[in-house]
């Protein structure tokens, strides 16, 4: 039974499930560090997925698709940034409303632009190719799982150390964290919280847009209504579980994705779908309980409504 469950394809599947979540969660992490509560990831991802497919279809090029995905993500996050930073609106209200907006707009535009309902699949849509990295991809087990993937997979994985350096070793990162912790203190030193918060929210939009592009051009090559299907919410949880640390976020996303991929496998072995569906969420809850000592600060953040 176990050889049927634990094989390279499982980790392959987990990696694919992880990447969109990871990309979006890294975006959420940047926002969290800048002191903006980002729960529009679900909607941004959906808009990114839609725009990526649209762009790829129009230009028959995944590059443009990815650019479109990023642009759409940034556009929505611009609304979030304006609302929360400039107008000091409630980020929770805005986030949920923008999720709704993305759902409505993509659903509205799909038939308007492509004359199809529900699902848009077309040979013109240029998907992200798998790029096998020479040598590395030949490593048994790890190679095919990690080093034979789409470009956005590599981007996501490289962003983990990249964002770590950015946050903890560069001036920008120091200022960003400062802004997130004490905006007034940063302001008195001439670091504009507005600029940094805008930057963080836009960056999260770009990343969640990329997450959408990976979903609709990488994981599959098509768009389906509401295809983000809760992955953005999972990313929100991953930011918290990973305590807004790049490595923590990676671990949280990986844990969730692995539990999901395992769930698919267990289903094949006869476990009811109702149980395997809940598996990743239960595993996340358990992880929260195990790691609970670390959440005292988080609790303060999330209960100051």
């Amino acid at each position, binding site marked *: 039974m176990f050889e049927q469950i634990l094989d390279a394809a499982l980790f392959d599947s987990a990696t694919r499930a992880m990447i969109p979540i990871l990309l979006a969660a890294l975006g959420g992490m940047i926002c969290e560090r800048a002191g903006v509560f980002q729960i529009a990831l679900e909607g941004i991802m959906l808009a990114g997925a839609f725009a990526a497919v649209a762009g790829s279809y129009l230009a028959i090029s995944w590059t443009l698709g990815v650019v479109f995905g990023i642009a759409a993500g940034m556009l929505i996050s611009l609304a979030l940034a304006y609302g929360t930073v400039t107008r000091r609106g409630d980020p929770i209200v805005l986030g949920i409303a923008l999720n709704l907006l993305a759902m409505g707009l993509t659903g509205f535009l799909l038939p308007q632009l492509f004359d199809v309902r529900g699902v848009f699949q077309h040979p013109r849509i240029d998907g992200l190719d798998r790029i096998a990295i020479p040598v590395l991809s030949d490593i048994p087990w790890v190679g095919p799982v990690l080093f034979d993937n789409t470009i956005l997979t590599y981007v996501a994985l490289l962003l983990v150390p990249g964002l770590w350096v950015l946050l903890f070793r*560069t*001036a920008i990162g120091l200022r960003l*964290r400062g802004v997130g912790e004490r905006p007034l*203190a*940063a*302001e008195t*030193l001439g670091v504009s919280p507005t600029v940094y918060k805008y930057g963080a929210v836009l960056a999260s939009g770009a990343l969640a847009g990329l997450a959408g592009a990976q979903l609709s051009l990488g994981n599959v090559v098509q768009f389906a209504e509401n295809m983000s299907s809760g992955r953005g919410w999972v990313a929100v949880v991953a930011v918290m579980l990973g305590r807004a640390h790049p490595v923590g976020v990676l671990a949280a996303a990986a844990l969730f994705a692995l539990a999901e991929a395992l769930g698919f496998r267990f289903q094949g072995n006869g476990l009811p779908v109702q149980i395997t569906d809940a598996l990743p969420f239960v595993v996340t809850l358990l992880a929260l309980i195990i790691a609970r000592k670390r959440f005292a600060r988080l609790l303060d953040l999330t209960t100051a409504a």
Partner: protein
Amino acid sequence: MTFELELRGITKRYPGVLANDAVDLAVRPAEIHAIVGENGAGKTTLMSLLYGLFPPDEGDIFIRGERVEFSSALDAIAAGLGMVHQSFKLFPTLSVAENVVFRQEPRRRGLIDRVAAVARVRDLADRYGLAVDPEAAVEDLPVGVLQRVEILKALYRDAQVLILDEPTAVLTPQERDQLFEVIRRLRDAGRTVIFITHKLGEVMAISDRVTVLRNGRAVADLVTAETDPAEITLHMTGRAVDLDRRAPEHQPDQAVLEVENLTVLGGHGRAVVKDAGFQVRSGEIVGIAGVAGNGQSELIEALCGLTEADTGAVMLSGRDITTADVAGRRAAGLAYIPEDRYGVGTIRRASVSENLLIGHHREETVQRRGWFDRGAVARLTRRLVEVFDIKTGSVSGPVSTLSGGNLQKVVVAREMEHRTPLLIAEQPTRGLDIGAIEFVHSQLIRYRDQGGAVLMVSAELSEILALSTRILVMFEGSIVATLDPRTVDEPEVGLYMTGAHLEAAVA
């Protein structure tokens, strides 16, 4: 002559308040310039305008003779100003060095050069005698050190003019003396210091000149050497105030609060209060003196039920309240004026009346079976506002618009109204002006004279000496001395506070 800094006709209006009214201020190079005034006189506002935090409605600012217009603090920093705010503007989770170099980080290959940052901060600290560990996380540091970090921040930015807003409010005499040392050293190095305070003794001790604000206007510009506290007070208040009042004799009665072997563990598992034991009797004020960060706050929080004690027993009026929660302790007869009136004592987003109700809201007089008697609530708040002369537009308006002094009155009024056997007062007059201090002191004494027991924590040694029947000194979590205020003076208490008696004993 060219002034280092000159303000002309500065006016700033808030809705309904003229915070600064055509204020002129001239500060000479390499002088220590004190600014004094009652609460709400407009000191903080004036400094904020000077520092570019917001623009004045009218008036001009000149630096070394040149007219400047600051659109942000950044411009002020670039013009050589540095400000240590009344409430510190530090990043708790960042290190001292990171706080200091923030936005002017030394870099190497695009990354922050952390070694250089630490080295520079250490260098600077050594030069001006500011003892700090550049690598410590700010959230772990006591206030006195935080202030040094703030000063380092300004110096790191090469501030020619350093503005200190009520810097001594949180310091012990020793720390204050160290600060004065630093300030003099800065002046001798050619820098200018603007120093806001409510304490005239400090004005006399450190400043070269003093400007007095009253109701938003600059009413006097004096040379310190040519004036005296009485004159300054007259300018500030328009009347004479007698501060030098000793507590009248009074005979304490039986014990109200009994604390035995109380130990409190801090976040890191270290004991922050060690084996504390003492009594407070009715009709007495027990003052706790200590350098901030030596366990006074933790002791008080444990007594009030805000944190849990690890071991020990607490009795209130003969009842064991060791395991009771806040509500239980309040019901057993305790009222508490907390040190942090913004974060704990009041609720910013609630109205004045809602704030006055905190802790009274379950009393039979204002509610019945969970439903408020709205008339009774209104009567209660109206009475408190009147008796304590709280200056507020409307009791249903937000409490956040009150000045610091009036905010403190809300807390004092509310807690005294409980008429409990025990009143715990933590830093009851911090940051208040002379008039307000006088008022709070008289209230504490009235409370005592009516047979109440008062446990008071204060960083203000003069206050402790003036009011206390007995003084407990805390050092590193332990009560190291019980002193009689009639037989000690400030320097002596200060010695105990810094643990010097221990060193003496060893030697």
